[in-house]
């Protein structure tokens, strides 16, 4: 018996194994690595262990001492030989701008420098080496485990005295972007609900043949590439586009005052609502299909007007669908990337566009990971809140 059930278990496990491997390789592992990167950075720590050990004793003010200069000179030269100097320099540069060129230049110049105290040699190469801020930057960049990416992601930084301080006003961008992202996601969710609820009601209560057609219309967007749909909105909404042409032709807008509908927040809202609408309609439809049309008739026969019947009888029964649809749309919206990138212009950019920037352009993967980690955490918080309010087991996705 035991052998038999054991075999069954092995067979069952071997059936799900490919899926488990797939999810592991394509989802769990990259996600874990991203989160790891947001708190873990060994590059500087590996390249300059001796310097960092000495700097740990230093109070952060004044001259760090000849021993530090000597260790740093040696380790920079070694990093240069090992070819990792560029990586080290760019990490220090992220903590304090302008240090990259200083660090890259130093080993080459040191080779020609006369023997003697390294402090003098380095000071001679660049006066920045005598600035305590430089050493503080190296010490910070050398932290193997760090939360500074998360601090940066919410516009904070470690102060010279060690406490947490706000970034200077011109460097505060992420909090505003997060706020804008959540605002846009909330607005898109509300628009989808407003537009999707009546559509879902119509489909759920239409005769079977018509319902199939309407449902197909809702699903058509899924058969079209996201890129095509998004760029079509540019065609429709641009200054010389169809919508503006119609408004001008109808005399609602003067030709000289065509509306800016795209490459701004309006474009982002319109295009995202369009793209995400099916994700709202489908869960709503699936909930509404389960509500017999007789229920509203019953409420009317009991004396309730439409508004009362809707509020007390119909709406409460659709709440699981509203919750599921809203959660889905909101989560998809806060991570939206292509659409805002194409139709958002400067004012329509969202946090995901910044994550992409740090991934692809600035190569600051630690910060990208931290921004992503915050998004992930907010989705988790939302999910828990939803579970509290509606109950996840009541959620109906389709």
């Amino acid at each position: 018996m035991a052998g038999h059930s054991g075999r069954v278990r092995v067979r069952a496990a071997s059936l799900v194994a490919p899926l488990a491997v797939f999810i592991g390789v394509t989802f769990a592992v990259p996600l874990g690595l991203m989160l790891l990167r947001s708190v873990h950075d060994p590059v500087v720590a590996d390249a300059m262990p001796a310097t960092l050990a000495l700097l740990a004793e230093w109070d952060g003010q004044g001259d760090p001492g000849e021993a530090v200069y000597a260790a740093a000179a040696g380790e920079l030269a070694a990093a240069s030989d090992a070819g990792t100097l560029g990586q080290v320099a760019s990490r220090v540069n992220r903590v304090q701008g302008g240090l990259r060129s200083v660090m890259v230049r130093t080993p080459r110049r040191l080779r020609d420098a006369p023997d003697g105290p390294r402090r003098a040699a380095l000071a001679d190469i660049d006066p920045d080496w005598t600035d305590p801020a430089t050493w503080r930057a190296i010490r910070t960049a050398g932290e193997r485990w760090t939360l500074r990416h998360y601090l940066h992601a919410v516009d904070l930084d470690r102060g010279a005295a060690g406490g947490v301080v706000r970034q200077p006003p011109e460097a505060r961008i992420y909090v505003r972007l997060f706020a804008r992202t959540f605002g846009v996601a909330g607005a898109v969710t509300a628009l989808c609900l407003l537009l999707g609820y009546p559509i879902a009601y119509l489909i759920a209560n239409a005769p079977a043949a018509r319902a199939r057609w309407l449902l197909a219309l809702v699903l058509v967007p899924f058969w079209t590439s996201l890129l095509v749909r998004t760029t079509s909105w540019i065609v429709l909404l641009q200054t010389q586009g169809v919508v503006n042409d119609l408004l001008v032709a109808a005399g609602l807008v003067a030709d000289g005052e065509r509306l800016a509908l795209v490459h701004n927040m309006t474009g982002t809202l319109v295009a995202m609502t369009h793209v995400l609408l099916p994700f709202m309609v489908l869960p709503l439809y699936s909930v509404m299909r389960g509500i017999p049309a007789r229920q509203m008739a019953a409420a009317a026969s009991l004396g309730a007007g439409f508004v009362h019947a809707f509020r007390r009888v119909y709406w409460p029964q659709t709440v699981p669908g509203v919750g599921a649809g809203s959660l889905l749309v909101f989560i998809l919206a806060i991570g939206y990337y292509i659409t805002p990138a194409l139709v958002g212009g400067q004012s329509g950019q969202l946090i995901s566009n910044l994550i992409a920037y740090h991934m692809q352009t600035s190569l600051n993967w630690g910060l990208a990971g931290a921004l992503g980690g915050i998004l992930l955490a907010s989705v988790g918080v939302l999910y828990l809140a939803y579970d509290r309010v509606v109950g996840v087991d009541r959620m109906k996705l389709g």
Partner: protein
Amino acid sequence: MPPTPQPAEGPPHVEFEGVSKSYDQRTRAVDDLDLTVRRGEFLTLLGPSGSGKTTCLMMLAGFEAPTAGTIRIEGRRINDVPPRRRGIGMVFQNYALFPHMTVGGNLAFPLEVRGLDAAERRRRVDRALELVRLEGLAGRRPGQLSGGQQQRVAIARALVFEPELVLMDEPLGALDRRLREELQYEIRRIHADLGVTVLYVNHDQNEAMVMSDRVAVFRDGRIEQAASPEALYEEPERSFVARFIGENNRLAGRVAAVHNEICDVEVDGGIVRAFRVAPCGPGDRATLSIRPERVAIAPTPGLYTNEFDARVEDITFLGDHLRLRLDVCGRSDFIVKIPNMVGHGAVIEGDRVRVGWTPTDCRVLDPDDEEETP
């Protein structure tokens, strides 16, 4: 025993006057209907599927608009009154309870709409639950109740706001036989207790016979006959009714002669003297309808006006009675029921016997379109 149906003689409560309804502008689901329901009456709309019963209720409740005609409640035309202002209690076929509310919440809903305060609501909800014998279940959700209990809740909800008119559309259709019989009795009791007018739809003739003061038999959107259960059984006026209510032997024939109430009809095996119900004259086609229990086997010769030779095709023993299938007057499916009494063993399959019946037990009705003519 359910209370015996009371003769309904109150003033008119509901009147349908020339009411028609067409969903597709071509066929009529309800066709020029005239019907008066008296106050306090229990009237069943009985008929085959698709005959327009639900449509009638829906028009009365206000969920469908008549294509033509007038519907009145207490003499007031209500064609244009919205459903919620008609004050009609309605029990839907699949209950239509609100699944997200408790039983108490369901019952309180119509009271809440009417602005009753919490104490009064609770009092009435308790009374309604008592009426349907569901005391103590106010806190449950409909999903936690059995089918029979849900049906009781639906009935209680339709009654809790004390409407004078209650409509029920096949309320017991989804229940098993035992539960159905129990609830039939309950509904009758509630009707007798409250004195409300009930319009009840179903297509089970036994249920209609047991429960109703009066039954309106529907066919293709028209009422064939509306009468008490006894009258429908004993005195069907249409061959459809004779066929639909209880068991009947039908003989197709042609009228040979007419003498006032009585006429002679020529059928396959000879001439039958019968009671004339449908207006007819010599030469007209007609259907004769004879109840199986009104046929005598081997009667004293000369006792009955109508006597024929028959062959016993088979006999079924049914406990309290025997069911004989005879070949007579050109039909081999002529049924006779005889009570199980001493001496029935005299007849066996294959026997040739004489059968007889009186002219008054044999009714001349309109030709039945669904029967072949001789």
